[in-house]
């Protein structure tokens, strides 16, 4: 469990970045942090894995303040995927890259090789490939795999799909969804509202260093006050259903005015129009 209690952070005295953040993330959740650039999302992520310490307030992991945990202890609890995989990858082969974190944590060499072999097979990597000759999407998958191999209970992802094409994006997100289904807590910053709508179960909205909304994904993404305050544009289907609900009182409560995803909207339209479903 991750808990923020009245957390304040500033990079310099004149620019507070977090202004009293309170939140609690339980084991097994899939939470997306959204908000405008500079709202404090990435700073919040860096507090979870101890890259930053709060100026005031407290961040705890399983009840222990991050300030009291050594980097190696935090690394066993929280895996962190940087926005740019090139800030993370440091070895000359895929296999060495996957072994790097396990060795740093002191995992027995035979056990480490066994775990790496499983991950190489699962991701379909060539263990001898040079990471820096892989394309961007595969480097992102490698960075993710180097966290997965550690078997950490929490993964924190700062914009995991930036710079990826549609196929790469789907591949990375489906893998993250599988990790979540297997029990991993997933905390991610994401600007792509289609991805947030498709994958996250809970959304935290940050604005000017504060949490201004927090709840089940579509409760938050359908809240007009939140959308306006945080300059958020929800996914296109939510935009459509919200507009239909706002502009036509006669549609209030109908499935087309409540649809959250493509399938729901197609079925709702066909039910109303009497077309052939599917």
């Amino acid at each position, binding site marked *: 469990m991750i808990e923020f209690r009245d957390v304040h952070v500033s990079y310099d005295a004149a*620019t507070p970045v977090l202004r009293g953040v309170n939140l609690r993330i339980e084991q097994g959740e899939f939470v997306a942090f959204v908000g405008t650039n500079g709202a404090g999302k990435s700073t919040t992520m860096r507090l979870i894995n101890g890259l930053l310490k709060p100026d005031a307030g407290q961040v705890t992991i399983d009840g222990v303040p991050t300030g009291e945990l050594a980097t190696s202890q935090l690394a066993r609890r929280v895996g962190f995927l940087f926005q740019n995989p090139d800030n993370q990858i440091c070895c000359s082969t895929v296999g060495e890259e996957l072994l790097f974190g396990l060795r740093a944590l002191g995992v027995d060499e035979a056990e480490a090789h066994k775990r790496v072999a499983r991950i190489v097979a699962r991701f379909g990597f060539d263990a001898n490939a040079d990471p820096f000759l892989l394309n961007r999407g595969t480097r992102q998958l490698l960075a993710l795999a180097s966290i997965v191999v550690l078997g950490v209970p929490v993964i924190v992802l700062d914009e995991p799909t930036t*710079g990826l094409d*549609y196929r790469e994006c789907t591949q990375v997100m489906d893998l993250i969804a599988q990790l979540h289904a297997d029990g991993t807590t997933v905390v991610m910053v994401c600007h792509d509202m289609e991805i947030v709508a498709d994958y996250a179960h809970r959304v935290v909205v940050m604005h000017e260093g504060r949490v201004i909304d927090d709840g089940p994904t579509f409760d938050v993404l359908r809240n007009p006050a939140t959308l306006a305050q945080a300059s958020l544009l929800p996914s296109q289907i939510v935009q*459509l259903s919200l507009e*239909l609900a706002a502009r036509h009182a006669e549609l209030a409560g109908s499935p*087309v005015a409540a649809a959250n995803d493509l399938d729901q909207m197609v079925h709702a*339209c*066909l039910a109303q*129009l009497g*077309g052939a479903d599917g």
Partner: protein
Amino acid sequence: MIEINNFSFRYRESSEPTVRDINLQIPQGCFCGITGAAGSGKSTLTYAMNGIVPHWYPGDFYGQVKVCGMDTCDVALTDISRVVGSVCQDVESQIINNIVEDEMLYGLENFGFPQSEMERRVDQALADMGIADLRQRTVDSLSGGQLQKLAIASVLALEPQVLVLDEPTAELDPASSRTVFELLARYAREHGTTVVVVEQKIALLSEFSDLLVVCEAGAIRFAGPPREVLQHADELLAIGVNCPRSTTLMNSLARAGVYAGGTCCKVDEALGVLEALLGVVA
């Protein structure tokens, strides 16, 4: 105006050409969006437009690329950079000063603009990008999105005839991404700036582009107005390009036989069609 005729390019270290047989005409004032899967040749195509190919990356260059009447092989990179402003995919590789204002002034000073003109342009570009409040900040205190806005603002300040931007909104929030696209469309409309944007955000490209180009394996697979290109939804998906959800929704309704109109490119269009279908037009 950009004219690309029978252009192919093989990087010196590659065994195969990265782009092949490209023919593309982009008129002055056109907003051209380029998309495609990773490795499809999008970035190399933009390198041909801003002269990075062949002036920076050597290799075998075939065909002809003309920008504002200049054959890019016949002139120096400096000459090209006077008319083409570029924003790289990796903005950190582009920013070299430590204070936002210094970064804004860097290109203008290099081109020798008078001080009063520099002031006006810096003020305007920072205001256009919504980052006037960052003017005295150090670059290393900026977020990824703020860095991206700074890179775009420093190029806008040069008021180039052609803007070439490689994933300029990758790190921006949805509202800021939209603002950048609106701003680029305004530059194209009001100043006649030719805008070329490589992007994965198909919804924004579909809404703002006059010309949408889809690359596949180093070649142009589709090029035309977004409405025409998005008609090929299944083929696009097969090459790793997804349509906007509003387009997919209306395609699904068309397949189910309840909608017989054309391809929808934007949310507003889909909304209008849905209102008509549901009989709730005001």
